[in-house]
């Protein structure tokens, strides 16, 4: 018995020693939900066009690319990757799709542990924090075949490349730049005896005047809202509060993004206007919008006017109540002669902490996927803020694209700051307290400013 015990002990020790033995060479941490590597087609001729003066590497290169999950976007990327690998048989691209809600956390954690992808996809507002931490590789002009960053930026609408430009170098480029324009449900307008084009509000005062005709309250319950600002997400709230503040002549952040001005007189005026519009037109207590279904009230016919981006076109056009019976007009203004709007988007960038050859090929791949703005629009529904898009055949059939692009022309990018989440939470809380709890706008924004300053100190 003694002998058996001893043998068991020895076996256990052996197991433990094996378990505690030095591990095999460290594998990179497993990324979330890795898709199967897209299989390249049979090697084809390697005569893919590359920039003059740059030679495409001949050695094998494996790129990791992460993007935020969105059906049409993913489908388009999964079409482009095999095409690129067919052109360059020595390149393998592994794709990982991550929910947009988790992308920032997962990317940050992966970058921190040295397991980040070669090619990053991220909401443009977050890139400043990556830039400040040295995570981003500047655009490779040689690979791009450009002489200067100005030349690259020149292909975009004015300001279109600004969100990924830091210290006069381009670090990220947009595959979508969304304006926020006013969508009108034609049916609800016509039911109220209004014309969706001629009666569309051009100013916030127009909006307040038109709302009583569109808002329907039965037995004390709002069953149809004329218009509502968003209340399902603080980021959405900031997206609409920012242009409103700018329309009153203010800025929420200093130009260098280091100082917040959330309680400026202009911001306070904007918040007062927000409340007036909400009281006349909306009822935030009745919204069914959620972060995953932000356009739900409009789609269901409970909302006659709604501010959203061109990316919502396929979803709204496919809906039962609204369908293709909608009109899009420019964002309402305080002063239509001095319009201010907002653009936000998602951009590609390259991880600086990767081998040189990977970085070159990564920029070449980005150049390749961005080279067909018309296809992006047709297949993913994304508007690249580039010159000449409006003249393409696809653009001519895309509903109200000219309106969206016109709003981009007068837009500022969604605020770029390493503290964008803190600022959006603070502004969202201020808006909520004014709208829901009747708080004083100045006091609410003073509290938001204190929160932002505390975060940014």
């Amino acid at each position, binding site marked *: 018995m003694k002998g058996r015990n001893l*043998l068991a002990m020895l076996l256990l020790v052996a197991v433990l020693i094996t378990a505690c033995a030095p591990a095999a060479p460290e594998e990179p941490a497993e990324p979330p939900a890795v898709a199967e590597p897209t299989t390249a087609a049979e090697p084809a001729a390697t005569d893919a066009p590359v920039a003059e003066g740059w030679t495409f590497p001949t050695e094998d290169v494996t790129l990791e690319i992460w993007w935020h999950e969105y059906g049409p976007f993913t489908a388009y990327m999964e079409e482009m990757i095999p095409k690129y690998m067919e052109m360059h048989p020595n390149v393998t691209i592994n794709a990982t799709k991550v929910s947009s809600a988790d992308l920032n956390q997962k990317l940050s954690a992966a*970058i921190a542990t040295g397991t980040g992808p070669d090619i990053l996809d991220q909401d443009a507002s977050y890139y400043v*924090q990556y830039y400040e931490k040295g995570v981003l590789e500047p655009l490779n002009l040689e690979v791009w075949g450009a002489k200067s960053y100005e030349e690259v930026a020149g292909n975009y609408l004015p300001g279109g490349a600004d969100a990924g430009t830091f210290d006069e170098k381009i670090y990220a480029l947009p595959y979508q730049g969304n304006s926020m324009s006013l969508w009108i449900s034609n049916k609800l307008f016509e039911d109220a005896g209004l014309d969706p084009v001629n009666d569309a509000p051009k100013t916030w005062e127009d909006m307040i005047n038109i709302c009583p005709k569109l808002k329907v309250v039965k037995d004390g319950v709002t069953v149809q809202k004329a218009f509502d600002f968003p209340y399902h997400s603080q980021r959405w709230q900031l997206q609409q509060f920012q242009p409103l503040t700018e329309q009153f002549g203010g800025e929420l952040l200093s130009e260098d993004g280091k100082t917040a001005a959330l309680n400026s007189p202009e911001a306070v005026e904007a918040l007062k206007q927000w409340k007036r519009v909400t009281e006349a037109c909306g009822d935030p207590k009745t*919204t069914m919008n959620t972060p995953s279904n932000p356009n739900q009230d409009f789609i269901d016919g409970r909302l006659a006017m709604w501010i959203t981006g061109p990316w919502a076109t396929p979803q709204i056009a496919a809906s039962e109540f609204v369908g293709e019976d909608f009109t899009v007009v420019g964002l309402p203004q305080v002063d239509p002669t001095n319009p201010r709007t907002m653009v936000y988007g998602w951009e590609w960038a390259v991880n600086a902490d990767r081998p040189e050859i990977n970085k070159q090929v990564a920029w070449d791949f980005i150049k390749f996927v961005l080279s067909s703005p018309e296809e992006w629009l047709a297949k993913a529904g994304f508007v690249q803020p580039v010159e000449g898009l409006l003249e393409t055949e696809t653009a001519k059939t895309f509903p109200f694209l000219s309106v969206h692009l016109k709003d981009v022309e007068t837009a500022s990018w969604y605020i770029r700051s390493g*503290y964008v989440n803190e600022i959006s939470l603070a502004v969202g*809380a201020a808006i909520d307290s004014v709208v*829901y709890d009747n708080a004083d706008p100045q006091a609410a924004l003073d509290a938001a400013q204190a929160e932002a300053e505390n975060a940014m100190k």
Partner: protein
Amino acid sequence: MDLSQKKSPIQRINVPHFLKLSAPRQQKLFGYLILLPTLVIIFLFRFYPMMQAFYISMTDFDLISPPKFVGLYNFIDLLKDPLFLNSAKISLTYVVFAVVPTWIISLGLAVLFNRNIPFKNLIRSAIFMPVIMPAVVMALVWNFMYHQQGVVNVILGWLQISPIPWLRSSSTAIWAIILIGIWRASPYFMVIFLAGLQAIPEDFMDAAQIDGANSWQTFWYVTLPLLKPTTLLVVVMSIITAMKVFAVPLIMTHGGPANSTRVLPLFIYQTAFEFFDMGRASAMSIFLFAAVMIVTLFQIRIFSTGEYE
């Protein structure tokens, strides 16, 4: 053949003298070795991260750049941070108003189901359903139920009560979240109380009845004192669970409106993974950990007073 003469191969090994152990010591060592894998796992995945959190709480760490040691700065700064203090207050409100009703309801249900009532097992299973429902599913379902035209407001309408904007008002949102907490926790603690009740020997009840005690007196002077160990378990576990509430406010309100449901665990999560201030988030976690420890020790002290009297 004399088997006793045959030597085991083990016995032929020349074990050095200092490794020769007596039988009880060998057994003891065997026990420790059996425990070792579990202890290693607990250390690696529980205690090491906890110790790491203590270290990170004394750094300025954004997850990407290397951590910078800042001593107790995060702790001192938190005590002046109105958002942190507000979150701590909301968590305290949640704990007090979710936990106390949970004790009463779960004990009441346990007493009820300890008796012979018709369809006892069926009703007990139905009541237990919220416990097995995933928090995400539950939060989404309640989201619809709390809507302006949702089932809760429809029922209130039958009682001639105007619709309440449950999740869309900073004055009601926390109560909506608390109600879900009570609804979810009560059946779980009911089962624990029920196990405690069923462990009480019938003799005590019979003796009390012979002495002339009525039902209430039997419950108050016999059942409840004998339930003390179970009650301690329920009190400690329910408070710890309530202090860690996270998924429901995250999914249903994301801390809003106007920060009214931003409980401490949610604020810790936001600070760590939305603001990327790991040092500050770890410092908050240490505060939460300390609060849970103090409350738990205090409860154990209270419940152990007079235990042997």
